[in-house]
């Protein structure tokens, strides 16, 4: 199995605080890999390191065969990595249409017209400012924006955050659809049960270190671990 992304022994700091203590993980090509963990475990920091937004001080990152460890963020993205950041980070004062014009045009199947077909809500609201959208619409816009880069690898940071169950289901369905399109996916989630349903592989992060890696199926079967992950929250609703 070839890997879309592999990270080895990442150590990342914010100033003096040492956050990641040697994180290693791999995203297999054409599969969905879930990265789970409680609040503050270091999931976002891991993704920021992979994207070059907060460069790891130690370790090595390989994406589609290239050593991207010291690459600037824009170059990693231009290499085919779509990033849906935590909190969506849409451009609030720009219209939906303008938000969609920001990403680099790498060429590929995704065009603004096709995005509007996949997300009819965005087409209806294309003249609206980003800040006028609902949370779910903002999430769709953030995903749409990353897709317009025509990524080979899509990295999502808690896309279900703050969304109603029905909308979460829609978001997860889109993630599955991306997999069907041949895009490799790295999915960070708090919502353990639901992400394990769509994921192939899984990692669990705690205190800046990987404490579990294996198939999503095995992890899902480990009831105690999953319950601990969810922090005993009421995430009982499922995908189907």
């Amino acid at each position, binding site marked *: 199995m070839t890997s879309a992304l592999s990270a080895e022994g990442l150590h990342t700091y914010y100033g003096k605080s040492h956050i990641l203590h040697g994180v290693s993980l791999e995203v297999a090509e054409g599969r969905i890999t879930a990265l789970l963990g409680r609040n503050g475990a270091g999931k976002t920091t891991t993704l920021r390191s992979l*994207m070059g937004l907060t460069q790891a001080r130690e370790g090595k990152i390989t994406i589609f065969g290239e050593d991207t460890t010291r690459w600037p963020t*824009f170059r990693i*993205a231009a290499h085919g990595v779509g990033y849906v*950041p935590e909190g969506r980070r849409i451009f*609030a004062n720009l219209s939906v249409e303008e938000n969609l014009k920001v990403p680099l*045009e790498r060429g590929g199947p995704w065009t603004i017209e096709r995005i509007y077909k996949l997300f009819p809500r965005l087409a209806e609201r294309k003249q609206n400012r980003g800040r006028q959208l609902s949370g779910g619409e903002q999430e769709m816009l953030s995903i749409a924006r990353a897709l317009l880069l025509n990524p080979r690898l899509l990295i999502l940071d808690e896309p279900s955050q703050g969304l109603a169950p029905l909308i979460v289901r829609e978001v997860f369905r889109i993630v599955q659809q991306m997999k069907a399109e041949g895009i490799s996916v790295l999915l960070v989630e708090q919502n353990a049960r639901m992400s394990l349903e769509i994921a192939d592989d899984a990692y669990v992060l705690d205190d800046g270190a990987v404490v579990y890696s294996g198939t999503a199926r095995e992890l899902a079967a480990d009831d105690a671990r999953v319950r601990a992950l969810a922090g005993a929250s009421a995430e009982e609703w499922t995908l189907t």
Partner: protein
Amino acid sequence: MMTQLLLFNVTNGLIIGAFYVLMALGLSLILNLSNVINFAHGGFLVIGGYIAYTITPYIGFWGALLLAPPLTAIIGLAVERVLIRPLYGRDPLYSLLLTFGLAFMIEDGTRFIWGPQGKPVTIPAFLAQPLSNDLFFITGYRLFMVVVVMIAVALLFLLLRYTRLGVRIRAGTLDLETVAALGINVGMLRSLNFAVGIFLAGLSGVLAAGQLGLEPTMGTGLLMPSFIAIIVGGIGSLPGTLIGGLLIGVASGVTAVFFPAASEAVIYVMMAVILLTRPRGLFGEEGMMS
């Protein structure tokens, strides 16, 4: 007689306001995207003017009008690459001090190359004519300047609204990190944006040279009012900058009629009054170029 005097000064105010607008829009672009307060902006105006002066004998006024602003922008690009780029991400104080020093260097540099005396730039004869006897103070050139400024401003706003470059610049003023994560080379984006700002300064320089003649210090006088135009209009809002520039131009023009000594001070008074009533400036709340 009184109305004519008033009209004269309002016209004057609008024309000087048009310069403030051109300068302030460039300053705003650079400030919004790069957090650089470019004290050398007046210096680039001077460079634009002297370039026009130097090339006019060869390619005429029209050629200079067309060529001097992009040449100034190229010089700006080089300055950004070499001097300003290393300071991004540091405290804005660094770039402020750097450009402050740069302003002096440009002033002395122009004095060294072209001498301390003022230089005239010849404008086409038909533009030098007044429009009519009653409106003797409105020469064709003054009208022409205002039209050029209007076209430049309109093109700038079209660029920002309808081109990908413009949309990315606006996105970058909101969240540069996310723009980078979408595959955009933000270093390049900042350079291009800087160049657009300096282009506008160069254009102001050519236009000003035709009206006032050239002096190494001519940029300095326009700089402070341009900053004030930005603050009055509301930092982050380009339409605000546009209105702010015209407003303070006309205000100082009108004050010149009734109380000439205060025509400069009135700009600062206006700023104080506006900041007291609307701390974010006239368009500040709407924010970022909206």
